[in-house]
C-alpha cells in the first residue's frame, strides 16, 4: 500500500511551499519528494526581474483572502476598489485571480467585456478612469465556459496577469483570491515577492465553520511571511426590515471573529451586517456603497476601508533603486 502523503516530514524539511521543496538535500528519500518537486517553483531570476519591472509602479498591494468560500471576498474586494477610487487622484487596480469562479466582472458591471492587447501589453478593463480590472472572466467567450485547469496552468495565467497587464502607475493593487491555501495563493505570494505586499485582509463570517478555515489562512500568512492588515467579519447579524429585530443567521457559537482575533493577536478591522441590498448590487454590477449610502453595512465598509488606507500610509514602502 502506498505511503500516506501526510506521513512524517524529514528533519530540515525546507517546507512544502518553499522554492527548495523537493530539491533540498533533506528531501532525499522523503516519500513526498517527487510531489514537492513537481509543484511550480519560485520564478527564476530573469522572470523575477521582469515582474519587478512591471510592478515597479505599484505603490500598495493588498491581498483579500479567506480560506473559506462564500464569505464575501469578492464583494469586499469590489467595494474596497470602489471606496479607494472615490478619490479621483488615486489610481486603483483590481486583479481577480479566482480562475475557476471569477466573480469580479459581474460585480463591477463588466460582464461581457473583453481584454484588448496593445504594444505595452494587455489593457485592463476600466470601470472608471481611475479604476481598472483584470480577470479570467474577460478571457471567456460564454458564461457557461468552465476553466477546468489543474494547478500549473492556473499558475501560468496568474504570472501572465502580473507580467503582461499594462497597469500603468497604480496607487493600490487589490488582489481578489479564491478560497483555500493552494496553487493560486502560493503563486501570487511567490510572484509578488518580486515587489512588495503591504498585507492581507482576511474575510470571515461569524460561524466556527468559517473561522476554522480562516485560522488556517492566518497560519498560511505566517508561513509565507505575509503581514496581516486585519480581519473583517462579514454577515454579522441581520436586522429585519419589518420589525427591526436583530437575528444572528450565522451564529458566532465560538465567539466569532472577535474572539479569534484576540486569540491569534490579529486586528479586527470591523464587522459588516447582512443587507439584502448588498447581494442585489453585486448582481447588478453596481457599487453598494453608492446605491445604499445610509445602510449600516455601508458605514461599516467605509470605516474598514479607511483603516486599510491608514495602514498602507503608515507602512509606506520605500522602493529600492536597483543600481
Amino acid at each position, binding site marked *: *500500500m*502506498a505511503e500516506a*502523503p*501526510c506521513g512524517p516530514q524529514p528533519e530540515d524539511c525546507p517546507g*512544502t*511551499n518553499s522554492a527548495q521543496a523537493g530539491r533540498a538535500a533533506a528531501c532525499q528519500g522523503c516519500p513526498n519528494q517527487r*510531489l*514537492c518537486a513537481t*509543484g511550480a517553483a519560485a520564478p527564476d531570476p530573469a522572470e523575477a526581474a521582469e515582474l519587478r519591472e512591471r510592478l515597479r509602479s505599484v505603490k500598495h498591494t493588498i491581498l483579500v483572502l479567506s480560506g*473559506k*468560500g*462564500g*464569505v464575501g471576498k469578492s464583494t469586499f474586494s469590489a467595494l474596497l476598489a470602489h471606496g479607494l477610487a472615490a478619490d479621483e487622484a488615486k489610481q486603483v487596480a483590481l486583479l481577480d485571480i479566482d*480562475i*475557476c*469562479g471569477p*466573480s469580479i466582472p*459581474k*460585480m463591477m458591471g463588466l460582464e461581457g467585456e473583453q481584454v484588448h492587447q496593445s504594444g505595452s501589453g494587455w489593457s485592463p478593463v476600466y470601470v472608471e478612469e481611475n479604476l481598472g480590472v483584470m480577470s479570467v472572466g474577460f478571457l471567456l467567450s460564454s*458564461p*457557461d465556459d*468552465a*476553466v*477546468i485547469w*489543474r*494547478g*500549473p496552468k492556473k499558475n501560468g495565467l496568474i504570472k501572465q496577469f502580473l507580467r503582461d497587464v499594462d497597469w500603468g502607475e497604480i496607487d493600490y493593487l487589490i488582489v481578489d483570491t*479564491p*478560497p*483555500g*491555501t*493552494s*496553487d493560486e*495563493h*502560493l503563486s501570487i505570494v511567490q510572484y509578488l515577492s518580486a515587489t512588495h505586499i503591504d498585507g492581507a485582509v482576511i474575510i470571515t463570517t461569524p*460561524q*466556527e*465553520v468559517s473561522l*476554522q*478555515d480562516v*485560522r*488556517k489562512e492566518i*497560519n*498560511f500568512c505566517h508561513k509565507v511571511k505575509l503581514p496581516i492588515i486585519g480581519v473583517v467579519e462579514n454577515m454579522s447579524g*441581520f436586522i*429585519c*426590515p*419589518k420589525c427591526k*429585530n436583530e*437575528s*444572528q*443567521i*450565522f*451564529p458566532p*457559537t465560538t465567539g466569532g471573529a472577535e474572539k479569534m482575533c484576540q486569540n491569534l493577536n490579529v486586528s479586527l478591522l470591523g464587522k459588516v451586517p447582512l443587507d*439584502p441590498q448588498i*447581494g*442585489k448590487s*453585486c*448582481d447588478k454590477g453596481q457599487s453598494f456603497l453608492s446605491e445604499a449610502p445610509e445602510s449600516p453595512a455601508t458605514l461599516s465598509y467605509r470605516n474598514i476601508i479607511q483603516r486599510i488606507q491608514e495602514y498602507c500610509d503608515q507602512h509606506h514602502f520605500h522602493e529600492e533603486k536597483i543600481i
Partner: protein
Amino acid sequence: MEEEAAAERSNLAGVRHILLVLSGKGGVGKSTISTELALSLRHSGKKVGILDVDLCGPSIPRMFRVQDNDVHQCDSGWVPVFVDQDKSISLMSIGFLLEKPDDAVVWRGPKKNALIKQFVADVAWGDLDFLIVDTPPGTSDEHISTVEALRPYKPLGAILVTTPQAVSVGDVRRELTFCKKTGLRVLGIVENMSGFVCPHCSECTNIFSKGGGEELAKHAGVPFLGCVPLDPQLSQSLEEGRDFIQEFPKSSAFPALARIAQQILDGTSQRSS
C-alpha cells in the same frame, strides 16, 4: 474489463450508490447539504458514508462533532470514522489527519491529487447504501482527480448547490459545463439560503435574492430539487455537530431537506428497477 474486475475487488465494491455534491461557488452550503442529506438518508434506514475531498477547508468532521478523532489502519486500508455506535454514518476527511486543527494544508495540485486517489482507493468503507462525496468550490485539481478516480465505480451523479444570487448561479453554470465535459450525470440543483423567515415577526426576506437556482435548472434542463431557506437553528446544529433532522423537525428547512433526500431515494429505486 480489467478496470471492472478491479472495481469489484476494491474498497468501494460494497458501496451501492456514489453521489457527488458540487458547486463551483464557495460558501453555498455543499458541506451542509452533504451532512443533512446523510442524516436524512440515515433516518430512512440507510448506511451512509461521506468522503470529504476539500483538503484546504475540510468542514465535515466538525459537523458531526468528531473533529478530534483519529484515523486508524486495517488490512484493507484506512478505517473511516464512525459518528455513532450504530456505525450508520462513516466519514473520511483530511481533517482527521492533521496534527493540529489550525494547520494549513498548503499543497499544490499534484500532492492534493495523490491524497484524493488514496481517499478513493484506500478507505475500507465496507457495505454502504450511499457514499456522498463533498467537494471544495471550483473546477480544478480536486474535481478532476475525484471524477477520474471514481469513474470505474460509475457514480450515480452530482447534486449542484447554489444560492439564489446571480453571482452564485454564474459559477454553478460553469460547474454544469464541468459535469457535461466529464460525463457526470446531474441529479439536480438545490437552491440554498433561499429566504429568511424572521423568528420575531415571520416576515420573509430574500437576503441572497430568490429564484436563481430554479431558473438555472430550467435553463439547463436539469431537475430542480428544491429551495432550502436560511435557518439559524440549522447553522447552530452544524456548528455543534448535532442531528438537525432529529432535533428540529418543525424547522422551516426540514421539509425541504427531507424532500431532497426523498428525490434521491426515488431516483435510485427507479434506476434499479
